[in-house]
């Protein structure tokens, strides 16, 4: 149900075993052990039908259904409607496929950063909207508005709470800026299989009336269905886009009624927000009703049609795209100066409306005028370099070749920016710091030496790095073991005898970056495990703190222990968030 191309564009580490392990921990913590079991089953066995899930997960059908609905509600599982080709007897069978959305689960770690970003850009009311949307996974506008107003009233009082109009305006801005998107309908076909360019075979045009032609038409129809969703993904409902007048909640979603007048009974669950996330041990049976309604094909399938209820969710990709822009601009600023950073930020902002994902290889053709006008709109004159044309021209002449000139247009000179080149530059710096911290200054010297000079023998490495042979050997093998270097044997004779074989060492930037990415997920998993261990160790104290009826003098007596537990907890959680910052740079942009 997520972006069809999300899995295909992920880096391998984000689909690897360490990312999966971390995702399991996060789901277990947020939604309980039953959901964790379902996610594990989906990770182990891949995309599958409900029947297969029943068989593989070992959960009773009731629990499985509840857990699955909970996961769908929180957008951690994607649903697709698979339609088999028709046969002579009639239309082919159709069934729902479930796929774990690993990338969305891993974003749980980044939620505090998302909220900080929204607070900086849109203020506290938008934070509240985002927070509740994140807590519930997917909601209709009316449900979200009710929940936000109820929470604001509880915290600030009825008078101080923001009005529905204000919230509608905030929500509108969030959708326009693509922070919030419509939930994809669950009757979308599964994403098209991504074939590696080397594995693609040239096919002759199918003969008219043949099976191949029917397949081709079916694929085209499925692509059109996916495209249809992309077209409405950020489309506001008529009432929201029309400037947002009074009574936005009722006008936007006619099915929603004020919280006090909601129906009780079977239909009530469909209208109420799903239960909040928390440490649940029981598997979340209680969440089934709301999630079922939220995920029902009818409700979600109608998301495309106007007048029908539309579910909204947070678009993590947009956040990551903005974080990527920050990384790119700061890298450029560091290397070429502040005006260059500003000019590049202008290009990236101008490119935003043409982008659909954070992992884009290059921008569209953008002119100096585009970049200038978007910067002026966002920051006024302050953040616009005086001679932007000259700045961009100089950047395009740089040896890194990340800015490709594409002639002149109505807005002045035009450029295309190759984002992976700049991102890899930023990643390379981080990776070298990792190598230096891990293997010492001579380790990074050897790594860079091999990167610059290509393949070298051990003796040459020691000679050029100006270190002893013993140290060179030690560092080279340590880096080989950790996966930062490669070793190739070049035999002089057919028998591959070691004495007649050259052994050459090499450093590969892409392999190194992939290694760091994988290590990041593994370290995050370890950090999470340690955090859980520390909390379990002090379970009695945690229970005491969570129990609101404990006498003050009891807590006072254990003040030092409590402070220590809080300090340990804070340090581990802060380190986890810092680590996620680097994970974002290496894996999600």
């Amino acid at each position, binding site marked *: 149900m997520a972006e069809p191309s999300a899995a295909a564009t992920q880096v391998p580490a984000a689909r690897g075993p360490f990312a999966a392990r971390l995702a399991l921990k996060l789901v277990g913590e947020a939604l309980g052990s039953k959901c964790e079991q379902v996610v594990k089953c989906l990770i182990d066995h891949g995309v599958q039908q409900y029947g297969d899930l029943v068989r593989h997960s070992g959960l009773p059908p009731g629990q499985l259904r509840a857990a699955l609905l909970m996961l769908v509600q929180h957008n951690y599982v994607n649903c697709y409607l698979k339609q088999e080709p028709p046969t002579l007897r009639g239309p082919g069978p159709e069934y729902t496929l479930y796929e774990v959305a690993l990338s969305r689960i891993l974003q749980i770690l980044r939620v505090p950063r998302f909220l900080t970003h929204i607070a900086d850009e849109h203020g506290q009311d938008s934070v509240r909207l985002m927070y509740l949307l994140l807590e519930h996974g997917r909601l209709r506008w009316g449900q979200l508005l009710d929940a936000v107003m109820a929470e604001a009233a509880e915290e600030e009082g009825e008078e101080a709470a923001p009005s529905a109009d204000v919230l509608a305006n905030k929500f509108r801005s969030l959708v326009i800026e693509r922070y919030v998107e419509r939930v994809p309908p669950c009757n979308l076909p599964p994403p098209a299989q991504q074939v590696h360019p080397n594995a693609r075979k040239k096919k002759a045009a199918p003969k008219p009336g043949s099976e191949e032609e029917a397949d081709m038409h079916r694929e085209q129809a499925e692509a059109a269905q996916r495209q249809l969703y992309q077209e409405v993904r950020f489309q506001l409902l008529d009432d929201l886009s029309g400037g947002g007048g009074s009574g936005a909640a009722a006008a936007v979603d006619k099915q929603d009624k004020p919280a006090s007048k909601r129906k009780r009974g079977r239909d009530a669950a469909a209208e109420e927000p799903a239960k909040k996330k928390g440490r649940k041990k029981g598997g979340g049976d209680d969440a089934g009703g709301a999630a079922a309604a939220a995920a029902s094909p009818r409700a979600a399938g109608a998301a495309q049609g106007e007048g029908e209820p539309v579910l909204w969710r947070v678009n993590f990709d947009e956040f990551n795209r903005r974080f990527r822009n920050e990384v790119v601009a700061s*890298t450029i600023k*560091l*290397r070429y100066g502040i005006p260059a950073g500003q000019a590049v930020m202008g290009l990236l902002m101008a490119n935003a409306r043409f982008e659909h994902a954070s992992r884009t290889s290059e921008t569209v053709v953008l002119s100096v005028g585009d970049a200038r006008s978007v910067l002026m709109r966002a920051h006024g004159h302050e953040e616009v370099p005086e001679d932007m044309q000259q700045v961009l021209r100089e950047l395009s002449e740089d040896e890194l070749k990340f800015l490709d000139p594409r002639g002149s247009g109505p807005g002045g000179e035009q450029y295309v920016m190759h984002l992976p080149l700049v991102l890899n*530059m930023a990643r390379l*710096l*981080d990776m*070298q*710091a*990792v190598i*230096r*911290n*891990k293997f010492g*200054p001579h380790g*990074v*010297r*050897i790594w*860079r*030496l091999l990167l*610059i000079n290509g393949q070298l023998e051990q003796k040459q490495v020691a000679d*050029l*790095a*100006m*270190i*002893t042979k013993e140290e060179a050997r030690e560092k080279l093998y340590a880096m080989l*073991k*950790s996966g930062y270097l490669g070793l190739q044997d070049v035999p002089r004779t057919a028998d591959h005898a070691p004495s007649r074989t050259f052994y050459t060492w090499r450093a590969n930037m892409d392999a190194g970056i992939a290694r*760091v990415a994988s*290590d*990041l997920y*593994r*370290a995050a*998993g*370890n*950090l999470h*495990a*340690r955090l859980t*261990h*520390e909390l379990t160790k002090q379970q009695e104290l945690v229970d005491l703190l969570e129990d609101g009826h404990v006498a003050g003098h009891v807590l006072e007596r254990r003040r030092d222990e409590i*402070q*220590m537990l809080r*300090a*340990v907890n804070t*340090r581990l959680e802060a*380190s986890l968030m*810092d*680590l996620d*910052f*680097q994970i974002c740079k290496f894996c999600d942009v």
Partner: protein
Amino acid sequence: MSRKVEEMVLAVCRKHPEGVADTVLESELPDVSVNDRALAINSLLSSMKLQILVNPADPSSHIYKASTTGDTARFKGLTAEDMLVYQCIQAAGNIGIWTRDMKQRTNLQQPKVTKILKALEERLLVKSVKSVQNASRKVYMLYELEPAKELTGGPWFGPDAFDSEFVAVLQETTLSYIKSKGQPSLADIVRFIKETGISKQALQEDDVERIINTLEYDGKIEQIEEDDGDRHYRMMLMRIPESTPLTSIPCGVCPVFSECVEGGKISPATCTYYQDWLEQMELDF
């Protein structure tokens, strides 16, 4: 007669201390016939008063050089086998020759070669040098020769091993010079290093370049192209960060990171590095 010719040849050779070719001898001694001259040269060579060397100007010809009085004394009493070994060592030049190769080339037995080498070393005709390429291998070369760079490792090797400290000092000096000068050229840096007198051995341009290259590999400086066509260096604009979120936690620098498994012998829950890291925080706390 032959004695007189010998003295005449020796006199001409002494007049040319750099060595004299056969054609020069012929022109300087026009009255001496070729046969007499050949006899005299052979006699002088066998009595070690004259040395025959390859002409450096034309390697296909040879030159004669008068031996000094000391040389004559040093060579006195050497047998033909001794001379064979000596010539073998001489042919190896300043690269030197290993005893095993010597044995193969001279066709002598190992004990004999060892005995001859001992005698030659006592007479200060040859010397043994340890190769940095193979620490266990001793090579022999003429006593007066300076060992080649490949053998000694150049100025970076001390008497026993690689002098890492010297390299580090040179790196530090070069780096501070580049930092203070902005964008100096290679020639500027070489001049500065020579002026400081930091090295006892004279460092050549390629020696200094190797030091600069290591700084470049360390990510501390970068090379830039200037209009004058000369190579210039400056401090790296994008410095490698001191630390990253990954390496600021124990896992990032853990030597047994790849062996760490939950529930295993090495696990995050029982990790002593985490324990120390959190205890350090407790101390701060």
